[in-house]
């Protein structure tokens, strides 16, 4: 068949696909008049024409035109259309805890890297009042001391920030803490060393401040401030570290895959962990800004809320989504419910 006859026979199909693609590529949702259901069939037909045009050596211009149509159609046919409400709900009630339980070994490793130095440094700084200066410089130490001075109206803030709004502190906690968590995750790409380093340094700093302030006699303001959000915040950092170590493990111990393949698979599995860590830290920032700082609440109530938080977090990760179908396992290998 000559090219001219071929074009004359099929140009209507090409025009229909062209019009449909123009409608689908529009930003707005296609209207009821757009025959969306015809896309697969039209694309199959034009794909066939493209293959024939190439095989018969029709003109490069015609082949290029059909190639462009096939590319555009392929892009529209495979455009992801995630159903956000269902995805997020499933993620919150089952997907996130399931993901963490799948990687519980790395989670405990991250906890050891984070809480180990924290406890050791806390005990050491409690015993030795000067030890904190080996980690923080004296202006930082003075700032922490002023933040938890028992005479403050607002706990956890320096005297110059006493009047600051809770909303401002919320913004600061999100920007700072979630930023730290995301860096902890991303730097896991350096064979896990970056995540391990950030976990340990944060553990050391938190332990040092806690031990030092307790030893100074600021125990009540400090512990009543941190208890409320401690469960969410510390777990969030540990989960972000788990995600980072997961990236690093792909390079250190890729198993039966090549390193690039292992990296792709484990990075996809790390996504729910990172998202979950972000959610935990935003919740922690809410609690920290609007609840923890209030000095009017009796410390025993704050301790009670803090302990309740730990019980809830433990129950959530221990039990949520146990009975539900594990979508990541049920799907094809390496797939996560987010793709």
């Amino acid at each position, binding site marked *: 068949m000559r090219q001219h006859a071929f074009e004359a026979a099929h140009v209507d199909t090409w025009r229909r696909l062209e019009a449909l693609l123009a409608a689908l590529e529009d930003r707005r949702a296609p209207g009821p008049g757009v025959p969306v259901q015809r896309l697969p069939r039209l694309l199959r037909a034009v794909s066939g024409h493209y293959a024939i045009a190439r095989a018969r050596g029709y003109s490069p211009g015609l082949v290029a035109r059909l190639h462009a149509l096939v590319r555009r159609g392929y*892009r529209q046919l495979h455009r992801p259309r995630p159903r956000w409400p269902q995805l997020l709900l499933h993620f919150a009630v089952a997907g996130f805890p399931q993901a963490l339980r799948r990687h519980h070994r790395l989670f405990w490793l991250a906890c050891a890297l984070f809480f180990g130095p924290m406890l050791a440094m806390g005990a050491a700084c409690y015993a030795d009042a000067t030890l904190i200066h080996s980690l923080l410089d004296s202006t930082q130490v003075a700032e922490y001391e002023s933040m938890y001075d028992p005479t403050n109206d607002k706990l956890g803030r320096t005297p110059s920030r006493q009047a600051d709004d809770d909303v401002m502190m919320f913004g600061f906690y999100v920007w700072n803490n979630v930023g730290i968590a995301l860096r902890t995750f991303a730097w896991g790409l350096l064979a896990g060393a970056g995540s391990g380093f950030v976990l340990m340094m944060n553990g050391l700093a938190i332990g040092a401040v806690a031990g030092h302030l307790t030893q100074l006699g600021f125990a009540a303001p400090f512990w009543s401030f941190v208890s409320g959000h401690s469960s969410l915040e510390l777990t969030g950092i540990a989960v972000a570290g788990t995600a980072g170590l997961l990236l690093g493990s792909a390079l250190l111990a890729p198993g039966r895959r090549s390193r690039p393949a292992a990296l*792709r698979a484990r990075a996809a599995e790390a996504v729910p962990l990172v998202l979950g860590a972000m959610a935990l830290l935003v919740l922690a920032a809410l609690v920290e800004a609007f609840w923890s700082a209030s000095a009017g609440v009796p410390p025993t109530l704050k301790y009670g809320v803090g302990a309740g938080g730990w019980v809830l977090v433990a129950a959530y990760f221990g039990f949520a989504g146990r009975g539900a179908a594990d979508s990541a396992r049920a799907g094809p290998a390496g797939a996560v419910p987010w793709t």
Partner: protein
Amino acid sequence: MQEPQPQPADQPAAGAIDTLRRFETPEGVEIALRLAGPVPRALAFAIDFAIRAGLYLLLLPLAGLAGVGVGLLLLALFLLEWLYPVLFELRSGATPGKRAMGLLVVHADGTPVGPSASLLRNLLRAADFLPVLYGLGLAAMLADRDFRRLGDLAAGTLVIHRDAPPLPAALPVHPPLPPPAPLDLATQQAVLAFAERSRTLSPARQAELAALAGLTTAPGADPVAALLGIANWISRGNTADAAAPLPAHADVEDPAQAP
């Protein structure tokens, strides 16, 4: 029907050094993506950076609103710093900077980027950025044959040029002329390509190329006209309606005419 022959023209030898990535779609045809290198991507980043800097400046008056304003400013800072590219990539496959440079983010199989991959490749910018100004990312891009930075390697994504090169014009209509001898497929395609490109060439260049082709039938005939005639003979045959122009090309070419 022309003789079926193995496809010679646009299938380079395996391992060819070019920036086209080919793969087969589920429909069984092969499509090609043009990868984007470090320079257009760096320019796209610069444009995005300028847009973000402009947004920071716009939001700066919020700081005047004391506590609440500063809190919102910090929240906006966080979102712009980490999630600005994700938002745009999920909407249209490209940030405004990439769109301006004609770039597009896709999965390794050419499908539009999804939430998981987009989040990964953008959060991992923090690693690509090390030690300064995307040092690691640039090193990874230069070492990888698909120009992927670390975030792309982990997320399994590619950055490609959105548009194929501009399509050549339709074959100019000309009285068909049989070739002096049967032409093989590669020569036929060369003749067709010449005819499609002829309108973009100067008359002198057309004459030079046509003389080089050496397909002139009669002595003294215009070689350009002869070549265009052969092109029409190949694509339309020597039939009565051969001279009738086909309206199809104009429609397929011009997206403005699509309803």
